[in-house]
């Protein structure tokens, strides 16, 4: 579904990726782990075509990640700054539904699945962090894109919401979609996947961690030892 080859990217002359490789060939949930500021969001932005690499190729379903290809194949949950505070959640969803030609009943069902229907008619500025995360999740999941990029979707969620989001992520994988979840919250990430891509030393390393403990150990080896 997603192939990254020889990716190099510098941001303001600082190298973030140097000839990095990544392949997500089968559907499922994959974690993307690194400390804050290491380039997780940058990688997702590169995949979504919001940033252009200095070299290397990114293909989605065998095609370059052009604007049109990303529009058709990718759903991307970004951080909550993408929301317009003076608009309601429903206004955001209406826009996504209209541009992707989605059925309103389908949108309503996804919103209900994430228990977001109750607050959709309120302005976003009145939302709690958890509400914003759930709205973003609904906005990402309604499009039915085969590749789903989730940037820190577990932030700011209470235990009930965490369970709902976990279920939603796993449901997407069971529908044959590929979900790439960035997070530095290893215990929560471990609940949805054991396939982890660690971003380390400007490279992407794939590892299968058997447990939350194993993931934490590996995280410590990679990042805390350096510090």
């Amino acid at each position, binding site marked *: 579904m997603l192939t990254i080859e020889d990716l190099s990217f*510098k941001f303001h002359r600082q190298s973030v990726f140097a000839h990095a490789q990544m392949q997500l060939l089968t559907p499922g949930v994959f974690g993307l782990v690194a400390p804050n500021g290491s380039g997780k969001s940058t990688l997702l932005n590169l995949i979504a075509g919001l940033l252009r690499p200095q070299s290397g190729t990114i293909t989605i379903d065998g095609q370059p990640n052009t604007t049109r290809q990303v529009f058709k194949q990718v759903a991307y949950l970004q*951080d909550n700054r993408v929301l*317009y505070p003076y608009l309601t959640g429903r206004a955001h969803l209406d*826009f996504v539904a209209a*541009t*992707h030609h989605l059925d309103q009943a389908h949108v309503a069902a996804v919103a209900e699945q994430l228990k977001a229907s109750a607050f959709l008619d309120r302005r976003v500025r009145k939302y709690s962090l958890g509400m914003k995360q759930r709205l973003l999740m609904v906005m990402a999941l309604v499009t039915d894109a085969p590749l789903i990029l989730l940037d820190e979707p577990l932030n700011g969620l209470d235990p009930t919401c965490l369970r709902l989001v976990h279920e939603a992520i796993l449901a997407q994988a069971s529908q044959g979609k590929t979900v790439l979840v960035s997070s530095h919250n290893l215990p929560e990430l471990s609940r949805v996947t054991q396939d982890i891509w660690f971003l380390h030393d400007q490279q992407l390393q794939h590892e299968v961690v058997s447990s939350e403990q194993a993931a934490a150990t590996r995280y410590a080896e990679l990042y805390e030892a350096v510090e």
Partner: protein
Amino acid sequence: MTVLRFEWRRLWASRLAWGLALTLVLLCGAVFGLTTVRQAQLRHTMQAALTARQKGLAVQTAMWRELPPTVRDPAMQAAAQLQTQLTRQQRALRQRNNRAFLQARIRQAELELSPVPVALREVVGIGNLKAVVPAATQTQLRQDRACLQQGLGIEQSGSATRAPNFVVDWLTLLATPLASTIAVLLVISAWGFPQLSPQHDWMQLNLPNRWGWPVTHWLAVMGLWLLLLGLSLGVAMGLALGLGQPLIGGTAGWLTHAPGEVAPLLQLVSELGRSLVTFGCGAALMMGLVAFGAHWRRG
């Protein structure tokens, strides 16, 4: 259409449109008030000019006593006639009698253009008598005659509060590069900053064409400006119809105009077009700069 609808929804929800509309209404009211003051000042200036002219003429005629009777007598006679016309103009101005004012001014111009004062001017030297430029006098004479014939009131651009004149003046003001620049800065800074934020990314991700949003955004901005122009036009019209006063009197029409001038309706259409073009180019330039800034910020 989807994007345009969303942009409008965003516009109303952000209350920017209301803020701009209120600003324009207040500004229009302030300009109308200022124009009313300028109109009163203009009337005062006209009175003062006529008085000064009368005094100057009296001083000059006193000096002509030394001249030979063949030059002096017809000159004194013409000066007396000029004084009469100046007095009539002053009276007409006070009584707001446009017709009488025009008649007196036309007669004054005819006297000034007649051979006697010209010969006299050669005798006494330019500067003592009004520095009449015959071509300008003849132009004004033509205009005054046309105004008299059509019953049109005398007005001066920038100091007129009646509907056709004030509305055109107001639109001319809005179409100036300075006003357009301020409007563009207000609209783009308040409504266009999402281009510099992650909201821009979200819009781009949800559109199949990368030009879709900027182009639609520009169209929406233009639509907003057109609406605001329409609103301010309505407010200017309402104020002028309700409170506007003629400088002296007479009528003011949308299609009637003096020779050498353009009908107010045509001026209105022309200024409206000029404002849209100036604003549209400014908005496109500003949006381009914002987009460039966003691109640069991403490294």
